[in-house]
């Protein structure tokens, strides 16, 4: 069934088709539509889930942790300050190995108060132990929402589905909504490996002494390491059943490229347009879309970028005092390539707080990368008027 829907509703549809059992959420712009639609679905009986209203995002995640511990398929959605307010509970979800799925609509953090898109909210949760998947289109949002549950439940890790504020959240696109029956075959009901049992009461998340804590973190790391392989299998199934595939990382027109852009989120679509134009003009240029930020797709990135002369990383985020976060991670992934294969990595910070990243902005990035023989010591801020 094809429908023209906004990205927020694509999330809602994904959660509905995944037959989530517990939703706990607190409203925040630009996410609110996600849970509004879900509460409608609960109210009109099209979704048999328990919708828990709470007084804060911290409690929303706490309720999801409780639900997940009890064996339920739990979901929430948030954005920006809501996400960072959840921070403590994100650790509880991940450390407790609860396969919760959350949609985060990327929105800049205040102050100054800003409701437009920016990746700093989700990237500042980098080390909480959540899988992070950045989407480019509303179709990808819906598909990823369903896949996220399968992935999360396979490795017992929580998954954060990320989409840009307004460019996706409030922009309507044609989206193919899969049949429930097919989705049910793809994603059977959750069978929790470990869950609360009133007949055998135990506490989860109990005290762990130094002689075991590290082992638990190691097991978490092992699970993270499984994610790319599991995601690949999941995507293969999805491709077979629904005819679509995205990849944790995607190379676009990378053949014989001298310059590759590294992008994430909706900037990717704009960059594809610029790459196509420049390819038509004869430039050896392509792009690499990073969908999965955690675990970081080091192997895939090395495979695609090795031997390319120059790489320009477009960061709609910044780690103050350092630089663009994707650029840092990319450099780190490429650092120990043999020097002949290792590209020069040019970092660009742009589009913060929802500033438009238009084709001409990307042209400027490409031109600058071509002109400069060496990257600057610090990542370049594009379009700043000091």
């Amino acid at each position, binding site marked *: 069934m094809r429908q023209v829907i906004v990205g927020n509703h694509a999330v809602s549809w994904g959660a509905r088709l995944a037959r989530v059992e517990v939703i706990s959420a607190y409203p925040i712009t630009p996410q609110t539509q996600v849970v509004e639609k879900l509460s409608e679905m609960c109210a009109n009986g099209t979704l048999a889930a328990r919708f828990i209203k709470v007084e804060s995002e911290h409690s929303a995640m706490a309720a999801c942790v409780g639900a997940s511990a009890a064996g339920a398929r739990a979901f929430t959605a948030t954005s920006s300050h809501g996400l960072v307010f959840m921070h403590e509970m994100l650790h509880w979800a991940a*450390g*407790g*190995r609860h396969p919760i799925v959350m949609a985060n609509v990327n929105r800049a953090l205040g102050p100054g108060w800003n409701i437009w898109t920016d990746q700093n909210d989700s990237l500042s949760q980098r080390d909480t132990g959540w899988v992070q998947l950045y989407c480019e289109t509303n179709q990808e949002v819906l598909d990823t929402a369903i896949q996220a549950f399968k992935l999360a439940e396979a490795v*017992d890790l929580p998954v954060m589905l990320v989409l840009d504020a307004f460019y996706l959240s409030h922009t309507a696109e044609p989206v193919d909504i899969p049949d429930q029956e097919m989705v049910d075959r793809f994603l059977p009901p959750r069978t929790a490996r*470990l869950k609360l049992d009133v007949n055998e*009461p*135990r*506490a*989860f*998340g*109990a*005290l*762990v002494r130094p*002689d*075991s804590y*590290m*082992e*638990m973190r*190691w*097991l*978490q790391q092992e*699970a993270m*390491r499984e994610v790319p392989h599991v995601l690949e299998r999941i995507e293969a199934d999805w491709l077979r059943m629904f005819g679509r595939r995205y990849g944790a990382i995607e190379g676009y027109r990378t053949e014989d490229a001298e310059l590759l852009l590294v992008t994430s989120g909706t900037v990717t679509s704009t960059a594809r347009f610029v790459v196509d134009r420049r390819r038509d003009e004869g430039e050896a240029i392509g792009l690499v879309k990073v969908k999965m930020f955690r675990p970081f797709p080091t192997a895939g990135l090395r495979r695609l970028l090795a031997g390319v002369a120059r790489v320009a990383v477009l960061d709609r985020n910044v780690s103050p005092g350092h630089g663009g976060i994707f650029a840092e991670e990319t450099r780190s992934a490429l650092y120990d390539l043999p020097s002949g294969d290792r590209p020069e990595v040019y970092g660009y910070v742009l589009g913060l707080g929802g500033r438009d990243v238009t084709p001409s902005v990307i042209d400027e990035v490409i031109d600058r990368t071509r002109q400069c023989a060496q990257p600057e010591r610090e990542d370049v801020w594009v379009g700043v008027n000091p």
Partner: protein
Amino acid sequence: MPCGARSSRGRPVSSRSAGRATRRGIPPVSVSGTSTLVTHTGSWKYIWPVYHDRVAPCNRGCPVGIDIEGYLNLMREDRVADARRLLLAENPMPAVTGRVCHHPCESACNRGMFDAAVSIHAVERMLGDLALQEPLSDSVAPRRDERVAVVGSGPAGLSCAYHLSRFGYHVTVFEAASAPGGMLRQGIPEYRLPRAILDGEIERIRALGVEMRCGVRVGADLPWERVLADFDALFVASGAHASRALGVEGEDGTGVRPGLAFLREVNAGARPSVGRRVVVVGGGNTAMDCARSALRLGASVTVLYRRTRAEMPAIADEVEEADREGVAFAFLAAPVGFHVVHGTLRAVECERMALGEPDASGRRRPESTGERFTLLADTVLTAIGESPDLDALPPDLARRDSGVRVDPLGRTSRAAVFAGGDVTEAPRTVADALGAGKRAAVGIDRQLRARPREPRDADDLEALRFGGGNISALRWLGRDPVARVAPVNEVVTFEELNLNHFVKVARRRDTHARPERARATFDEVNRGLTREEAEEEARRCLNCGVCTHCDVCLIFCPDLAISRNGDGAYRIALDYCKGCGVCVAECPRGAIVMTREGP
């Protein structure tokens, strides 16, 4: 760490202890070996919660001293018969007060600040009517030998007789009129208080064994000293029957008469001629009763009051009903003379007043303006207040201008003589009279048993009061039937309630006869609520300060430290209560408090 340990997959380098741990099979999540019962979080606390029932503001506000919250709670539990018993234990005449009381309980009701006060009077009235239709057999205390005389059968006298009788005494009530009831019968018109209701409630008192001797005016027909000799104690509740004079020339002349005399005549069934135009002077309940009674005799009626509507002492509902029925009001006006032509009253000369500074009563004082106007009138009824006839009282009783001086238990300056109601300085309401009668009954019982419960009177009395309100007969008997964990005599304020647990529900309005029909007869105007409506209305009670076993504390306790005993009461497992206070904060009705001392 050897260099070779770093592989492409970043395998861990095992120290010995970690290696052992891994081989033991560390689970991915830390899971306790047993339930959390082993964790005695109770050791963290330095303060902890105690269930601590307190007093609802309605109970304190009631001059009769009724456990209003208690009977509303019994209604909520569908224990209607128990609710009636609890009500009747404190108030001998609920069908009367449900109709004519000014219900200060409702003004005090915390719910008034949430949406609208509980319609307590309507619930009381329904229970009172039910008790008349289906009497319950109630046991009374064993009979005693002492005899008590009660002079006056108004609400104070009847209340005293009722409670004394329930305490086990032989009581004889002397009434000067031909039928008991005092001002209830003589002053309050039938459209407010049908005689069948009044008769029914008096009959119930008589059925307890109270002897009623009507047509006997003590002091005139029977000497006071004789009564004092024949009885062990005497309660004087002879009321205030003398209408205050206006102090205007001509008020004793044709067409001008005391409102109370007029009411007495109408209430006895007479239909005196009042002409076409009646002017009533005054702003109290007697004035309203005169005005609406005159209306029912076919007159057009104007109430003359020297202040404004806001200062009127009459019950607001009465004023509103008078207004609806077509009584006219001339505010800020006082009579200064009467126009009599050929022996017939034609008009009242009036003066415009203005409000000045507040007087002793807190109301703004009316002041002359010198401006005059004339109102046509065939009859003027004066209703500016009543005084007791102090000359008719037993000698040697200390008194002030407005009445006999009594202490809180009704004791006068003379041994074995008690007094209460309008003959004292108390507020002149039915509820205050009923309350005074009960206090005197307790005072008489206490004196006759010669067994003060506590060395100091004040302490003794405070323990019997509802949070400083009137005393409870059941507490006096030591038979408070509502299980209370720890009755504490402090009133719960609105701010102490957790309103998140309550939803707004409209107050149910009494049914009234249509004004155009009401003004044509002496039939009862206010029809009250049906039983079903009253039962619903009772459920609006917030049960301020009193545990209703709603389980909110149990649900919210983060340590699951609260459980219910078999009898429904809560138990706090102090091994697990860590003293966080969530139960106190969440309790909808302020019935739990934090304490350093514990239970």
